[in-house]
């Protein structure tokens, strides 16, 4: 019992701490009006994805719940598609896939990009030059086509799309992380640890990772924006989400044939995609302002 109380106290303390820090960061971020708006938008987006079943006015998969291709009206605020499905509901559900795929594939690129970049930057020499040659070649291949090739070989499905988009995002991150690691490595405390014979992994974990963390946070935010677009592009080319899935890129693809007659089939899902990416980019910009030392210096 006592133990439990202590545990709950600790948990409470921890929660308070997290809340306090979050509030602090929220206030810092929100000092810029653009970033404040982006935070609100992103919060709304997450709520939309989580609460989709509760808030979407209709079943996104039900056909002919309205007349086909009806223009936006009170009944169907964003109109209906050629199968009489409600576009607003499909858009709300579409946020789920975009967010999940965007965040997970960015995380995928991040993990491997950081590993690759730190190894390369930390060890230097032959390891570095070989790894960077590989990364260069990787960078040289068009990312969309690369992702497409992976999906063609592995097959479609959400997991493979996440992996494909994730893999094609690795080299860019690896390169930037390497540059960061290189500059941190030159710093005196790292050299000192080396001198007293600390093991490499310890130096990487204790000194290098925290020091490159801020730029990694910025990068990963921007990577989420890129990943959302890449995943939607795959769907747009027919190699991502499959009908009847409600996904923004796929909705745009389906609407393309009716563009001349039903603009609402493309304009609204595209708008959702665009606003999401813009909000993530705005947040990334603000985080860069706050975290990136080089950026801060030039702004003083």
């Amino acid at each position, binding site marked *: 019992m006592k133990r439990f109380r202590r545990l709950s106290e600790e948990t409470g303390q921890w929660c308070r701490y997290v809340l306090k820090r979050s509030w602090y960061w929220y206030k810092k971020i929100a000092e810029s009006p653009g970033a404040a708006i982006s935070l609100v938008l992103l919060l709304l987006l997450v709520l939309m994805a989580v609460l989709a079943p509760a808030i979407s006015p209709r079943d996104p998969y039900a056909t002919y719940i309205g007349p086909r291709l009806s223009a936006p009206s009170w009944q169907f605020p964003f109109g209906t598609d050629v*199968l009489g499905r409600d576009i607003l509901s499909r858009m709300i559900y579409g946020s789920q896939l975009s967010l999940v795929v965007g965040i997970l594939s960015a995380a995928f690129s991040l993990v491997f990009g950081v590993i690759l970049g730190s190894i390369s930057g930390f060890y230097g020499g032959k390891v570095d030059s070989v790894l960077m040659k590989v990364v260069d070649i990787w960078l040289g291949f068009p990312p969309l086509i690369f992702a497409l090739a992976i999906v*063609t070989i592995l097959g479609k499905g959400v997991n493979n799309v996440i992996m494909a988009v994730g893999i094609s995002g690795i080299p860019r991150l690896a390169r930037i992380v390497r540059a960061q690691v290189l500059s941190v490595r030159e710093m005196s405390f790292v050299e000192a640890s080396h001198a007293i014979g600390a093991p490499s992994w310890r130096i990487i974990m204790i000194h290098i990772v925290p020091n490159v963390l801020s730029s990694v946070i910025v990068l990963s935010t921007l990577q989420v924006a890129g990943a959302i677009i890449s995943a939607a592009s795959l769907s747009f080319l027919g190699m991502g989400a499959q*009908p009847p899935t409600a996904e923004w890129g796929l909705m745009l693809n389906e609407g393309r*044939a*009716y563009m001349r007659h039903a603009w609402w089939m493309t304009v609204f899902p595209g708008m959702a995609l665009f606003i999401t990416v813009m909000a993530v980019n705005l947040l990334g910009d603000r985080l860069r302002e706050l975290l990136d030392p080089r950026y801060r210096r030039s702004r003083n």
Partner: protein
Amino acid sequence: MHRRWLGVLLGLLLLLTSVAALADLTVVWGEDRDDLATLDPRITQSRHELQVIRQVFDSLITLDDAGNPVPWLAESWDVAADYTSITFHLKPGILFHDGTPCNADAFKFTYDSIADPATGSQAAIDYLGPYKGTVVHDDLTFTVEYTRPYGAMISGFVLTYLAPVSPTAVQANGDAWFAENPVGTGPFKFVEWVRRSHITLVKNTEYNWAPANALHNGPAYIDTLGFKFIKENSTRAAALETGEIHVGDLMDPLDVMAFEGDDDFDVFLGRVGGVPVTLYLNTSRFPTNDRAVRQAIFHALDLETIVDNVFFGYLKAATGVLASSTFCYWPGGDGYYPYDPAKAEAILEEAGWVDTNGNGIRDKFGQELSIYCPIIFKATLMTAVQAELRKVGIDLNVENVTKARQDELIMNNEYEAGLVRWVATDPSVLGILMHTDNIPAPGYFKFNWQHYSSSVIDRLLAEAESATSPDERCSIYATLQELVYDLALMVPLQETTQTVVYASNLTGLRWEVGNYQAIFYDVQLAD
């Protein structure tokens, strides 16, 4: 300095983008595919390729609007009484575009090379039938012989697939060269083919061997005929409006509707013969090996409403294994399995398909009633079909795949359903889709995608092929069609319809009977 650079840049841009000067009278056909592979009639199986090939090559015979054979390159022909050979008498003076004469030897060369597996013929070889050889009697007379009676021979010779190719051109340059530099006898000569962009033909000024049903003889009226590849439906429609193309192929029904109300444009709808867009069901795999499942799919689909909704009334629901305009169409398919979702559910319940886990999909023996259905076209139609089947507890798992992937799945038997359509004028097309020999296998790409092997069907097909009177053929094919319905091997969905929109100042456009491909020979363009 800066300004000069800008000037140079702009100049460069203009230079790069300048188009070649256009000839005086040009008609451009907007084509919805951009991945044409060959222009050799002996090899092609694609209607998109054939649309071009049809203008460059001539056939021995053609069909008039009533469907009767009339002379073209052949002045006359005699079919042997036992249907084992046919003798043709050619018009004199026919020349290939390379100036060499189109004589009996040229036909022998063409047919021998089609029959040679090394040529890789994909369709012509089927229409050539049980080919034994060609006997040349003199320059203008030859006989095509068959190994057994072949009642459908005329329907093969009216097709562009069996058009003569220039032996000189093929022998001098090889098949690969010929595939992209076709040399025929037709009213238009090949000029250039820029892959994925366009094909240009010019009129053959020597031409004076037009078919009997053409509107004129002598060279074509227009000087240049272009084919521009524009995959997007909406882009093709826009290009028509701006006059960038004069004829748009396979227009979206919604666009057809808009153009119908426009005086500057005319609309042509051709109900194409052959096998309609059909959902075939793989009888060798779970769960479509269950006849109850296959029959339930029929009862669950209100095809008339679905097709009407998706295609705005411009396309028709299919009512038979053969399209209604095809010779020997059996009308009994209409209403064979009436729309009745309650009945569909009853059939499934009776066969033991119940939703035990409450996910909305029926199951049996612990396996879901889920049908994997890879497709390469008609995505919207299939989404509608999918939604209807879900209502009776069937999960149609539709995936849009590439042609390469589809072929791989088919050869490895890794699918339960899919879509097929076949443009043809003759019911013999059923053999391609039904014969036991045509069951695909790894490395063997054939079209019995139902994987249904039946000695009864094979026998009916053989009997129909050697039947000598049209009535006898049709009664055999009627039996066959009824059998296919009874077994519920395939669910015909929608009749293939050629939806063409063209500028109304364009006159003389004619259409091939059966497959409704455009013929540009008589076309004139008013100002």
